[in-house]
């Protein structure tokens, strides 16, 4: 689980021109965790104490000179190193006040970067690819510097533990410079068909291997693992890569973005659009690569420069006119936290989005316009549109634009909008049949949430069959699509609600109670799951028969669609017998079937209790009557618990009786119509308790019998036959 905390501005950014590529030359770590060296594009180097947002020292170059590479702190010598005018290396200490008096050395080639690793000598990377140790270089500043790169190659990005650069024309190459022994490896970076450029590189060293993350302009993040001790091969090798993330990109093209690896599973990105945010907003996102989920996001105002640094738990990102420091935290991620957080972010995202396109107006517009108008929605729904991969029929495309990105490893599917329900159904079927198993969950989850949000925004739109179909795949759960069940209730689609209750393992108690309330209140019958209904019919039939036979009282089986009943009031007044088991079913079979589903949901009593209190007194009485009915039935007829059929267990029934009584005890005591019910319940329970006592006694006596059986030595005398071999 990763989180971004409230950020603060460290300093302003003075970018020379509005179109400048970078806001800062660099932010480098200083000796302490709390200190950074900020080199701006102009002429100054400043050391900040981050927590105090206070500069500790600042150095400026003279007019006419300029800094060409970020100043670094050399922990070996305790000095700062910077380069001015590409060729002059300057070294100074804290107590030097101006650059003028400091040490300087002029080298005979342009310096690209100075690179200071934590506990080693700074390394100087020249613009043409040569690498020197700083002290070796300073011994003979005028030593000749070889040219590694060809003319058209330019260093684009440098990582801490590897020098990476690529040529500009056709291909990108990764150069890996190792020290001890010095060697340079050249790898070719694949660009794929889309001719995507690598935008940002990030390398981490773990377990003797270099993990290289490379963000392409197509929004794909690839990981390459290079062994530190690999055999040295000459020539150019193709860099092996695996796709980690495929991020939604607006135009299939990112301009400037940066990626920083935070820990093994998490990475921070800037310049990549938030999957559910509207265009034109820039976000700093933390993604989990293990689960491919967005862990945290923070909106950044102003322009993004595609620069991002991370030192000791803080992210440094220049945007707009400021360098902002955002502390973050990455906990060890698990599937549950990853999923849970994703949901939260989605809802956050929805708050951000307000653009809702009116479907009806769009109907009459032509396709191009409609596409334009739908831009906002598209973005929000993380659409990527790649025309060459759209497999839908042209007829459909007239009204809908469904865009697939059929990438070999991961299929992302997005629905922009449908107009006809039939189309939705057909398309979803097509998608479901065409999607391989590992991707099904992702696809179904997205589909479901998209459909639900669509339904919520458009009251006329309700694809019952499609939703039921999605639930049937068992790939949807409540936390993946939190609004589905509530939507079903809202639409009074109780068969879908039943399906959800059956298939979702993670329904919150609040939602369970909402369902219970809705079920108790009214019931527009629909096609419920047949097994559950037949189970209830069987039970009611038993009830009917028994009633007729035993007491001469035949309860009227309530009409299926009539919602509730107060039948028991007619019954058993003044009857002396303490056990009246002929209670008729207080609700219709279909309602009963739905209530059974409620009884079978997983819940925790203490969480359930506050929500149960929301039930009205009438609802409680009805519910209790039903529970009592079930209980009596189970008591009468053990076979009521038919094997194979989904039916609540006695324990579940008892649990609900307890919870309901617990939540509404005072109300029930005061309520005159609940009196009979409570008395009967008490009588019955009392008799059961007596029975249990007796059963306990029997069990006690029979236990010894069991013991006897175990020891065959009980007999004093026996004649038996043994065989020896």
């Amino acid at each position, binding site marked *: 689980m990763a989180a971004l905390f409230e950020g603060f501005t460290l300093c302003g950014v003075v970018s020379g021109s509005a179109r400048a590529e970078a806001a800062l030359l660099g932010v480098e770590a200083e000796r302490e965790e709390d200190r950074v060296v900020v080199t701006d594009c102009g002429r100054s180097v400043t050391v900040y104490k981050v927590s105090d947002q206070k500069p500790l020292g600042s150095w400026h170059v003279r007019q006419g000179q300029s800094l060409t590479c970020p100043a670094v702190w050399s922990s070996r010598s305790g000095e700062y190193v910077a380069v001015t005018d590409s060729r002059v290396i300057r070294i100074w200490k804290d107590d030097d006040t101006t650059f003028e008096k400091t040490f300087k050395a002029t080298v005979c080639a342009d310096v690209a970067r100075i690179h200071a690793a934590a506990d080693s000598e700074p390394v100087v990377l020249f613009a043409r690819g040569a690498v020197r140790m700083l002290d070796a270089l300073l011994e003979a500043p005028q030593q000749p510097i070889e040219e590694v790169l060809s003319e058209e190659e330019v260093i684009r990005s440098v990582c801490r533990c590897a020098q990476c650069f690529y040529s500009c024309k056709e291909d990108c190459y990764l150069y890996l410079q190792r020290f001890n022994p010095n060697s340079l490896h050249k790898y070719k970076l694949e660009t794929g068909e889309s001719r995507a450029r690598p935008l940002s590189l990030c390398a981490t060293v773990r377990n003797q291997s270099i993990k290289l993350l490379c963000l392409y302009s197509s929004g794909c993040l690839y990981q390459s693992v290079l062994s530190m001790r690999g055999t040295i091969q000459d020539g150019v090798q193709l860099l092996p890569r695996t796709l980690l993330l495929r991020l939604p990109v607006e135009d299939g093209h990112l301009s400037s973005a940066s990626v920083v690896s935070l820990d093994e599973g998490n990475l921070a990105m800037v310049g990549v659009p938030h999957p559910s945010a509207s265009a034109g907003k820039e976000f700093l996102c933390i993604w989990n690569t293990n689960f491919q989920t967005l862990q945290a996001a923070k909106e950044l105002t102003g322009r993004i420069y595609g620069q991002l640094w991370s030192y000791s738990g803080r992210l440094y990102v220049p945007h707009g006119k400021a360098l902002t420091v955002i502390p973050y935290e990455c906990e060890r991620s698990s599937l549950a936290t990853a999923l849970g957080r994703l949901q939260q972010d989605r809802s956050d995202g929805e708050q951000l989005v307000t653009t809702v396109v009116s479907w009806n107006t769009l109907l009459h517009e032509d396709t191009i316009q409609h596409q334009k108008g739908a831009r906002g929605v598209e973005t929000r729904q993380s659409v990527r549109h790649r025309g060459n991969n759209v497999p839908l029929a042209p007829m459909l495309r007239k009204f809908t634009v469904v865009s697939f990105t059929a990438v070999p490893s991961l299929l992302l599917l997005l629905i922009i909008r449908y107009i006809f329900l039939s189309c939705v159904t057909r398309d979803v079927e097509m998608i479901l049949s065409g999607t391989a198993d590992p991707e099904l969950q992702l696809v179904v989850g997205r589909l479901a949430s998209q459909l639900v949000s669509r339904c919520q925004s458009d009251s006329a739109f309700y694809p019952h069959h499609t939703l039921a179909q999605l639930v049937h795949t068992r790939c949807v759960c409540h936390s993946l699509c939190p609004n589905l069940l509530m939507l079903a209730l809202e639409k009074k689609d109780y068969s879908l609600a039943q399906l959800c209750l059956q298939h979702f393992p993670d329904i919150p108690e609040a939602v369970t109670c909402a369902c219970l309330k809705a079920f108790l209140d009214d019931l527009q019958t629909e096609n419920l799951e047949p097994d559950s209904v037949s189970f209830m019919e069987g039970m009611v039939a038993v009830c009917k028969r028994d009633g007729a036979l035993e007491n001469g009282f035949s309860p009227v089986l309530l009409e299926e669609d009539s919602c509730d009943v107060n039948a028991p009031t007619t019954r058993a007044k003044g009857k002396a017998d303490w056990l009246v088991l002929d209670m008729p079913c207080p609700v219709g079979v279909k309602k009963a079937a739905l209530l059974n589903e409620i009884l079978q949901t997983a819940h925790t009593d203490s969480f359930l209790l506050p929500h149960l209190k929301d039930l009205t007194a009438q609802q409680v009485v009805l519910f209790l009557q039903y529970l009592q009915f079930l209980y009596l039935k189970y008591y009468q007829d053990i076979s009521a618990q038919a094997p194979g059929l989904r039916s609540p267990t006695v324990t579940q029934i008892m649990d609900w009786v307890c919870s309901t009584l617990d939540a509404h005890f005072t109300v029930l005591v005061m309520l005159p119509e609940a009196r009979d019910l409570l008395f009967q319940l008490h009588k019955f329970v009392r008799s059961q308790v007596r029975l249990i006592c007796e059963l306990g006694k029997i069990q006690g006596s029979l236990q010894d019998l069991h013991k006897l059986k175990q020891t065959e*030595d009980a*007999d*004093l*005398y*026996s*004649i*038996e*036959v*043994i*065989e*020896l*071999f």
Partner: protein
Amino acid sequence: MGEFKVHRVRFFGYMPSGIRCMSFNERAERLALGRLDGTLEIFNFKDSFYQEKVIPGNDSRSVEAVCWVAERLFTAGLNGEITEYDLENLCPKYSLDAFGGPIWTVACNAQGTHLAVGCEDGSIKLFEILPEKIRFERNLDRQKGRVLSLSWHESGTRIAAGMLDMIRIFDVQSGHATHRMLVDRGVSGMRNHECVVWCVAFLSDLTVISTDSSGKVQVWNAAMGILSSTHLVSKSDVLSLAVSKDESSFVVGTSEGTVVQFQFLANILGGDEKAWVRTKTFKPHTHDVRALAEIGTAVVSGGLDTQLVVRPLLDKVDIMSYDNVLHKIHFPHRSLVSCAQKAGMLLFQFPAQLEVWRLGESEGRGEFCLGTREKWIPFQGEDHISCSAISPCGGWLAYSTVSSLRVYRLQCDEHVSISKVPKLPKVLRSAHQLSFSDDSSKLFAASTHSMVHVISLSQSECKHLHTFKPKSGSTEPVHLLAASKDGKWLAAANRGCEIHIYNLHKLKPHCTVPIYGSCPTAMGIHPTSNNLLMVHADRQIFEYSIVEKQYTDWSRRVQREGLHKLWLERDTPVTHVTFNPRNAAQFMLHDTYMFCIIDQSLPLPDNKCQFYNQITLKSLSEQERLSHAHAFKMCTKYQHLLFLGLLDDESLVVVQRPLTDIASQLPAPVRLKKFAT
């Protein structure tokens, strides 16, 4: 190999008596054990903890304390008498009334010159030990309250006496009490109860250790008469105490069944200042631990739950071997059951009664029928039965106490009638072992001085035929007798490990089997080959050809190849040998936890092969079995075996006494361990 019909008998209600006291003789490595019914048992710790001698108890005699004086054994009891025992004839030698009421304790000084006894009336009496008897010397100053425990200082000049609520130190010369050390009564609820000092031990550095009824173990300085330290080890009584010979550790036993060890250890590692520290706690028993001995490498404990436990102290053990593992001795190492093979009757020997049972007959397999208890024979007199036998035909029955020997005639019809045989020959006064010949015509009675009397039995009279005396002149009691089936040979083994073979036809000694260092525990003469088969306490098996007067080839092979390790490590001695009439090469042995059939025609198991291989063999086919079979066919199905015999119809009789049955007859323990308490 074959099937056996087994009469599985569990109706022998044998109940061992609780252990009251014990004393270990360091020099002879023998442990004398006194039981609540007055029985004295002597275990030879050198010889696989074999129960060497049993002196049957007497109703009028109780054993409250037992004490070795060199090789002599003294006991004192609540009848007020001090008794010395004749260990060769296994009977009391003489008893001497101390005239002080019940005696609670007896202690001998280190020099072996005096016995001190503590009496109910508060007196401590000193007896001088003379070569053949003891003589009252004098009383120490009489105190109020009984004397429950005594301990001599090694100098022999002081005695510590544990009494009610106090410990007194006496000066032996003057007879005066020099110190009086009051013992705290313990927790408030117990204030009204006297604190009984159950045990005291006087160490050579003038430290006195006491254990008492309020659960305390206290260490006193007897020179100053002050308390050094108190250790609360139990909520109930601490009943027994034993100090190791080097006085570096002691153990105490509580009524909860635990044994706690204390060691005299330096406070700091390598420091000089030492203190008694509680180190280990065992729970070898379920009931009171009444008797304890610390014997160098092990703690021996016994108590009301009747078992004798030898628990090794692993910190004092250098090499793990058979002698240093936990031993529990539940049953006597002699047979209390005899079987009339031809009549299918069993004779059970109890301390004060005999029971004759007739085994049921079954038509088919697995049919259950109850054996019938035909007779139980109570007898007059206070002495307990030392041995008994029933003749193979079931017509005669004989038993002996230390003072008398009786022979009965049994008539087996519908009902069994019993009649005492009058006018027995005068030589038959008592016997250590009784046996009948195979045709039931002769009774062999092993008597004093290793003599064996031969009595001919007939309807009309009983006639003394002959008395065999061992050539060696040994006086050790005979504990095993075996007669050959053809009536020609009689073998008698005595506790001195000698086995003499007598010719019954010529009435002359035939030969003596070469003496083996371990006591024979079971023997039998083969019905056809007349080879004598012997099993010793160390579980070695020998076969001796009586005719050729030499060990047989098989016996030599066994000695050459050695027995299997697992056989040698078995815990209990073999107590009975029978021969399989179906197969002359097979004989059966049993100990408490198994019986086995040994097939002399099969190869002996070596240490590499699987010893308990019955289950493996069962799973193999006939052909494969042959290649896997070895001579020892072990059957561990029947546990807690007291007897295994073979009837004439070739069915086996197995007499079991499950330990749970014994435990169920014990009184409730003081404290039961409950889960999570």
